[in-house]
């Protein structure tokens, strides 16, 4: 393709005060190209996208977008691109039709072109039935699709999308990408940020970013072949022992348990793998995924961190969480609908589901933060509605936002939460040391919490939540927006806590994380549509080799059939 590039960036960077959040980005994006910007939170993805949309001035470098200099002619770039920011960018008090009409009117779309374009886009997004509904009353997935339609109404040659599928249910995510696919077929270039590796894999080229610095740039196939030889799969009957062996080898970068008989390993260097002993006999090279690529390139020069291997876990019998027919209504809206679930000591229950499925509400009810409208729930034997005092003493809770005080240091946060939970002053130091060791965080983290990365904040929030040695731990989307490596590490910490007899309930919208949980609860529209081990759920569907996403989609489809029949 020799056409003029849509984006031509040289040495782009941005500084806020003394802090450089992005540097040395040099990329070219051609017409019709799908370009993924991949990296963890705080990597500089949003900054880069805002610079490309000409709504943020770069501190270094130069860049032409659609042939216009983004410094001199920002207005011309702004007028021609489609830019979708993270979160919800439309007006919640306006209806679907009004939002589309507004987006089109401020972008000078002629009236007759608008009508045809609107019909086509809304049909593609499956929103034509909801034209008179207010944007704020749509589901998260629908809001995202609508925002995308609003950005396609003026047929921009370049679409810039900041984490378009963040927190969107799998079905809506597929629809979102179907719309994007047709936009690509119309010749539009798409630049998008993501933390989903499968989306990265589907793009023409990707840029991997970490800490504001580009790590790798190229087609996914190129990047994967560069990582070839680094990635192996271990077949074993004793994964605990295999992991223990992997942990001791200096050549091992990272490993993740895939199932009860498979562990995936990334090596520091390509080539013949070292002898890892009896339990890692069946070691065979596998085709690297984008997740593996990210692990390999981002850990190249990172210091080796002692990762705690997953300790062995035995089943325990004491039921610590018992919810029966729990329901919660907000006005007409049923946020949690007749949920019955039990969690035993030492067990990890994963709550999976899109935003708005009721995961957070269910967790809040079980924590005693929200009274159920119906049904009953007991935590460690205490009734959540009537004995909330005792319930709160028995639980640890990490909320989505990691409720830390960002203007205090790590140590100050720990001391505050320790006092708030009534840890005796004489035991405080020992308790903090214990909690930090369990959460894999050092109390020597300098500076205020707001300057810490989200991965460290996440572990600090975990430390704060376990200071009073709770028997039940609730984690509400603790891994959202955290890079894959830190996520694996976090799951290992959770497993370690469970092995000590803590019952854990974790919610997540990363479906691949399901493999870390003992049992799964799939939630949709407030209902628990499936509950059981991953194997049991697969068996139920008759899909032995299915991915978690397919399992989830099949259950959603089954629910829809049931609903239609009713």
């Amino acid at each position, binding site marked *: 393709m020799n056409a003029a590039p849509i984006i031509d960036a040289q040495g782009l960077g941005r500084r*806020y005060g003394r802090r450089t959040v992005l540097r040395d980005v040099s990329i070219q994006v051609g017409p019709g190209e799908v370009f993924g910007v991949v990296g963890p939170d705080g990597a500089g993805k949003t900054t880069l996208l*805002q610079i490309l*949309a*000409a*709504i*943020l*001035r770069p501190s270094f470098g130069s860049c032409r977008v659609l042939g216009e200099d983004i410094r001199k002619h*920002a*207005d011309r770039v*702004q*007028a021609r*691109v*489609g*830019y979708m*920011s*993270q*979160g*919800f*960018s*439309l*007006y*919640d*008090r*306006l209806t679907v039709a*009004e939002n589309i*009409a*507004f*987006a089109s*009117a*401020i*972008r*000078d779309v002629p009236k007759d072109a608008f009508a045809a374009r609107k019909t086509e886009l809304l049909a593609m997004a499956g929103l034509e039935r909801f034209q008179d509904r*207010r944007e704020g009353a749509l589901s998260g997935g629908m809001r995202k699709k609508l925002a995308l339609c*609003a950005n396609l109404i003026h047929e921009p040659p370049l679409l*810039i999308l900041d984490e378009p599928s963040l927190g969107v249910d799998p079905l809506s995510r597929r629809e979102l990408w179907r719309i994007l696919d047709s936009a690509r077929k119309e010749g539009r270039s798409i630049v998008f940020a993501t933390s989903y590796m499968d989306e990265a894999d589907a793009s023409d080229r990707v840029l991997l970013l970490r800490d504001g610095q580009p790590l790798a740039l190229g087609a996914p196939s190129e990047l994967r072949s560069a990582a070839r030889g680094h990635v192996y799969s271990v077949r074993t009957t004793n994964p605990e022992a295999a992991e223990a062996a992997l942990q001791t080898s200096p050549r091992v970068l990272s490993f993740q348990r895939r199932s009860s008989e498979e562990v995936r390993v990334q090596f520091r260097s390509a080539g013949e793998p070292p002898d890892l002993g009896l339990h890692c006999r069946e070691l065979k090279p596998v085709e690297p995924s984008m997740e593996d690529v990210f692990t390999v390139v981002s850990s190249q020069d990172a210091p080796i961190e002692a990762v705690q291997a997953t300790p062995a876990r035995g089943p325990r019998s004491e039921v610590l969480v018992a919810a029966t027919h729990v329901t919660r209504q907000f006005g007409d809206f049923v946020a949690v609908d007749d949920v019955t679930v039990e969690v035993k000591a030492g067990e990890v229950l994963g709550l999976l589901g899109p935003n708005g499925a009721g995961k957070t509400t269910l967790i809040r009810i079980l924590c005693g933060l929200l009274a159920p409208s119906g049904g009953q729930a007991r935590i460690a034997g205490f009734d959540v509605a009537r004995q909330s005092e005792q319930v709160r003493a028995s639980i640890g809770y990490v909320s989505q936002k990691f409720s830390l005080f960002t203007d205090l240091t790590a140590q100050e946060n720990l001391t505050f939460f320790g006092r708030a939970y009534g840890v005796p002053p004489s035991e405080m130091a020992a308790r903090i040391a214990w909690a930090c060791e369990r959460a894999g965080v050092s109390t020597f983290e300098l500076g205020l919490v707001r300057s810490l990365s989200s991965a460290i904040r996440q572990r600090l929030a975990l430390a704060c939540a376990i200071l009073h040695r709770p028997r039940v731990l609730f984690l509400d989307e603790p891994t959202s927006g955290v890079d894959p490596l830190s996520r694996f590490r976090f799951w290992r910490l959770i497993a370690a806590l469970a092995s000590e007899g803590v019952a854990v309930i974790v919610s997540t919208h990363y479906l691949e994380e399901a493999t870390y949980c003992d049992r799964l609860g799939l939630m949709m529209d407030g209902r628990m549509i499936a509950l059981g081990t991953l194997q049991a759920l697969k068996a139920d569907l008759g899909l032995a080799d299915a991915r978690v996403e397919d399992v989830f989609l099949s259950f959603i489809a089954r629910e829809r059939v049931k609903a239609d029949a009713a």
Partner: protein
Amino acid sequence: MKVARIFAFARKETLEIIRDPITVWIALFMPLVILFLFGYALSFDVKDAPLIIVDHDKSAASRALSDQFLNTTYFRQVGAPDDERIAEHALMQGEARAVLSIPPGFGRRLRQGEAAPVEFLVDGTYASTAAIVSAYGRAIMYAFPRGTLQLPVQPEVRVWYNPQLRSRDFIVPGLFAVILMAFPPLLTALAVSREKELGTIAQIYASPLTKPEFIVGKLLPYAAIAFLQLVIVLAAGFLWFKVPMHGSLALLVALGLLYVLCTVSIGLLVSTLVRTQVAAMLVTLIVTLMPSFLFSGFIYPIFTMPPFFQGYSARIPTMYFVNISRGIVMRGTGLAELWINVVVLAVYTAVVLTLATLLLKKRIA
């Protein structure tokens, strides 16, 4: 500037406003709440001031003088001791605001055509109330039959424009200016900073909408609301409080429209400088409401202020509309006398709007 884009933007803003019950409530009811609160509570009129009468004379003439005081609505008697010390004690305790002391022989002296001194003691703790009470006392004594009380000069004072000195007739036209400076800028600043907080503004940044279009598109709907507020407070002022109107209502409404354009522009200017709704609210209150109460002549006349604060007051548009509003309502003044205020408001609005347009950044940072 493209009219279609401005219209689309203003329409979207209007839809958002009418669908938010809180905004509608603040816009329509809060001005009335403030008008009623201050219209009723803030009064410089003295009514039923507690008065002690020490009558040493106990003649027909002394009783006539006492009755003269008590037959007004200004005073009510709270005691009639024989001893001045008891009266002074009551004054000190705040049980009485004034003491009328009639010496022995008052009636005899009057009959003989001699000067008949009486003592009128006023509690000066509240300076403005004291001045009013003593003026009332003096007026009653002037009016005493035959004008024989001992008074060296007998001036004839007439009050123009508000002959009964009804303070409500003076407060309410001032409140028009203060209320229209309080709510329109607040609503406007909140609307823009809300877009910044929710992130919906990113969509505006990445669009062909220009800065002047943005400013005008926001200005129009909020100026319309502010104009509605103007109509509401004027209606309440004239119909409920029955403030007499001496000038042209059409002129007041026309100049009110100019004034609300000015106050909404101030809200826009504030919103270009802050990022959050909380900051918008605080800054707006500090730059609009607070100085409007103190430095607009609404309560405290500007000509009695030290020169520095007179200069400060001249920088706050409220003062000019207080002049306009009181001028038209109380004195029946026309443009011939008020034009300078109108010119200042117009220039002020133009400058603020230009500044807001220049300071608005169509960028995140």
